[in-house]
Structures are given as C-alpha cells and as structure tokens.
C-alpha cells in the first residue's frame, strides 16, 4: 500500500460532476475539498484582516481632513488595472531565491494589493460625503475632532465601508485560486488539475466551489454588517448620500 497523496492521484476522466461531489473521499483527507477550502479561507481572512488594518485608518483620516481626493481615484484605477496574476507570478521567483518558499508571501501580497483599493476608496468616499451640516452640528455641540471622526463620520459611513469590505472580500476569494498555479494548493487546485489534465468535471466542480465560497463570503459580510451597524444609522441610511461614488 503506497501512501499516495490523494489530490495528485488522478480523478478518472469519465466521472460525472455529481458523482465526484458525492464521493466522500473528494471532501475528506489532507487534500480534500474541506482541507483545501480551509487553506483558502485562512489566507483570505489574513489578507482581509491586514487590508482593513492598512486601508481604513489612513482613508478615514484623510477623508476627515478632506485631503487626497485624487490619490483615492488614482489608487482604485491602478489597483483594478494591475493584473493580480502577473504580480503574484513576478513575486514567486523572487521569494524562492530569498528562501521564503512558494507560499505564502507572493500570493498574500498580490491579494492584498487587490483588496486595498476598494477598502480605501469606499471608506474615503463614504466619510468624505458625510453631510457637512451634520459634522458642523456635532462640532457646535462641542465634539472634539476625534469624536467627530469616530462617533459621527465613521458611524454614518459604516454601511458604505462594509460595501467596500464585501467587494474586496469577494474579489479576494474569487482570485485566491491563482495560488494553485503558483506552487500552492487551496481551492483552486481542482481548476488547475482540470485544466492541466483536460478534465472538465474538475474544472466545473472547482469553479462551482469557488463561486459558492465567494457567495458565502458576501453573505457573511452582509450579516456582519447587520450586527455592527447602529440602529439609528440603519434608519438614517436611506437619507445619506452614501451611495455616491461607492463601488459594488
């Protein structure tokens, strides 16, 4: 009995999609869907956590100070136009030569670059477009600048900030599978193996799994938003100009 790594043992060519998804071995084991999915979720969560920490504070601060409008637009354009795969693939030989291995740095940095623009832009736009009258009223009521930023502007902008988080998260989850083409595994392994082995079941199955995870991600962020957004703001939401300039 040879200890064959499961995912590398080829999936039979004739197998149907339902048969493949219905087989318990497809899901379990060190290279099964559950374990690969967990790899993907872990990386995406790390990327999103870092992205939020890096993008939100400067975006909120600059918007509060009403500076850097052009930077925001340029950033989002750049971020969308740079091909993520090229970035990640460029970083792989660099990482290998430095002895960092295939993972996780190249794919992590490439995905972070993808996540930053929507996070930054939505936060910036949302806070920038909080009604100036409301801010002035708070100032008149004796709020300090810090309180204005956190308790007024950020609170009012939060649902658009969440839109940015949702867009970024969905893009990161849907793009993470390129990792499989760069010496890693994760949920993209099925699409990669399907393409390499000319096995349509694997390509479709893999694409479905990724799409399902992306949809779930979108749902989870929406639920998080429900929990986080203050009651008063939720009622106010329709009245704010929050939709302007936001993406997604």
């Amino acid at each position: 009995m040879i200890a064959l790594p499961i995912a590398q043992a080829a999936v039979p060519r004739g197998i149907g999609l339902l048969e493949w998804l219905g087989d318990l071995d497809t899901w379990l084991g060190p290279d099964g869907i559950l374990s690969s999915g967990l790899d993907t979720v872990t990386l995406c969560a790390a990327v999103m956590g870092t992205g939020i920490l890096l993008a939100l504070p400067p975006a909120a601060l600059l918007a509060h100070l009403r500076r850097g409008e052009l930077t925001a637009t340029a950033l989002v354009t750049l971020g969308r136009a740079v091909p993520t795969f090229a970035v990640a693939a460029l970083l792989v030989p660099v990482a290998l030569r430095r002895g960092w291995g295939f993972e996780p740095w190249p794919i992590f940095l490439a995905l972070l670059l993808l996540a930053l623009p929507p996070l930054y832009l939505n936060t910036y736009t949302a806070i920038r477009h909080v009604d100036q009258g409301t801010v002035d009223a708070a100032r008149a009521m004796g709020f300090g600048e810090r309180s204005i930023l956190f308790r007024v502007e950020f609170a009012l902008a939060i649902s658009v900030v969440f839109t940015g988080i949702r867009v970024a998260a969905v893009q990161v989850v849907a793009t993470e599978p390129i990792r499989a083409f760069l010496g890693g595994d994760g949920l993209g392994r099925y699409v990669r193996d399907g393409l390499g082995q000319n096995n349509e079941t694997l390509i479709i199955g893999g694409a479905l799994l990724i799409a399902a995870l992306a949809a779930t991600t979108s749902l989870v962020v929406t639920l998080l938003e429900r929990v986080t957004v203050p009651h008063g703001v939720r009622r106010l939401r329709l009245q704010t100009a929050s939709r302007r300039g936001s993406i997604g």
Partner: protein
Amino acid sequence: MRITIGALLVAMVAAAAVLVAGGGDDDGDAEGPTIRIRGQDFSESVTIAEVYGQYLSARGYDVSILTPAGFRTEAIEALRNDQVDLIIDYIGGELTALAPDAGIDAADADAIIATIGPVHEAEGATVLDYSPAIDGDAFVVRGDSEAQTISDVAALGYVFGAAAACFERPQCFLGYTDPGVYGIEFSDTVTIEFGPLLGEALAAGEVDAVVWNTTAPQIGVQGFRVLEDDQGLHPAQNIAPIISSAVLEAWGPGLRDALNELSALITTDDLVAWNIETDLELRESDDVAREWLEQKGLLAQ
C-alpha cells in the same frame, strides 16, 4: 466644426483599420489556402513554429503565424475546430493525449506514429515524418543528489514537483509511483507550472526532483542532472508536423516534401541551442528562427 469632427472620426477609423489590417501581406503567386501555424505557449514550441513558418513562407507558401497559446490540448482542439492548419508537436505527448491506453512500446517512435496517425487521419489531419530532434521527458535532480538512475530515488524520500498533467499520466507520476515500474514513495508532491519555475523550485530546495524536458537549457546552467530512465518509462518525444489534410491536399505533394525535408534537418542540438538563445540570452524566437534558417541556406530562394 461639424466637418472637422467628422474628418477626425474618419481619420481615426481609417488609422484603426490600417493598424488592424497591418501585417496582412498578399502574395500574388499563392496557389492554395493560407497555412495557419500556432506554437504552444513555451519558447521551444514558439521557435519551432517560427522555423516552419518562415521556411514555408520563403518557399512561396502563404503562411500566417498566429500568437502562441495554450498547450497540447488547445493545439489539438484548434486543429479539430479549423482554427489552425499546422502544429508541430512531440509524438510521445501526442500518444498520451490521444491514446493513453495503447499497449505499445512507447519508446518506439514508429509505433507511436502508427498509433496516432490514424487517430488524426480520422479527424482530418495528417501526421508527417517525425524529425530526429527529440525533446524528451527528463527526471531532474540537483547536482549533489546521490541518485544516478530514477530507480535510485525510491529510497530517498524526495519531494516531487511537476506540472498538473504529469500526475495523471502512466509515463509520468503514475509510472514513478507504480510498484510494477519504479515504485517510488515521494514524501510530498508540489504542482508547478511548466517552465522556469521548475528550476527555481529545485534550486531553492522546495522540491528535490522535477519532471522537465531534456532540452531545457537551465538544467546545465543551474548544475542539475537528468537521471537515467533505467526502466524505460519515458516515451519517444521526436517532433513531428501535424497538418490539416485538406490544406495538404490543396497545396499538393510539394508541401509534404518541403515539410519532411525541413524536419529531417532539425536536430536535438538545434533545439537546445534555440532554447539557450530564447530563454537564457532572452532573444526573440522569430530572430532565432530566421538566423538558423539563413545559416542552413533555407531562406535563399
């Protein structure tokens, strides 16, 4: 004002049309359909496509060399869909793609042609004479490895790296791990895009063995070694042109002869030399192809 905008629009459209149409040459003495050639997405295949394309073009054939794309699957698919007329492929790879379960001696090039020829014939394509040039499968290790043959690897607990396609092939991963052939137990496996990343991973120690191709110039440069295939698992990998039968017929026997003459002239050393120029000296495939053809006197007409 209207007129200027109108004129500007016309000028823009005209400029775009010129740009789009640019490169389309019309040979007056063409007596057959345009022969569309497409290389696969790696340098050697791109250079080979340029060599065959420029050669035919110099002989008066109407040739169009398309943007390289995809690998064997896409190449065969495109031939079937009439989106390309001529591909030059490696016969052992063709065998595993078209008749993976054929019980023939895969090291015998003639046996392979006898097997894949009819498969292509049934789909409207003809396999021409194979070239002496071979780009075979290579089981590659670092220079300091204790192994001399692939069998030696069985006891070493190596981490194995290869492209996705290798993992389902009897002449590749399945053969290395099959107890009836090599019976190697790898400690881990990594799927790596085919190309220079294989060498990078090997050099970085991420993997201990990779499946590459024998003409990859990095093998010598980076101090790697190709292990001997002592069980004779790897198939013969000569290059051979596969051409749409309709196009072949339309041009008559001259085309067949011309292609066969060229194939006979290309050697394995030429493939290695081309790869050194494109992948190490970073020159362009079309220039490399033209210089080789000039040197052989094949462009002088």
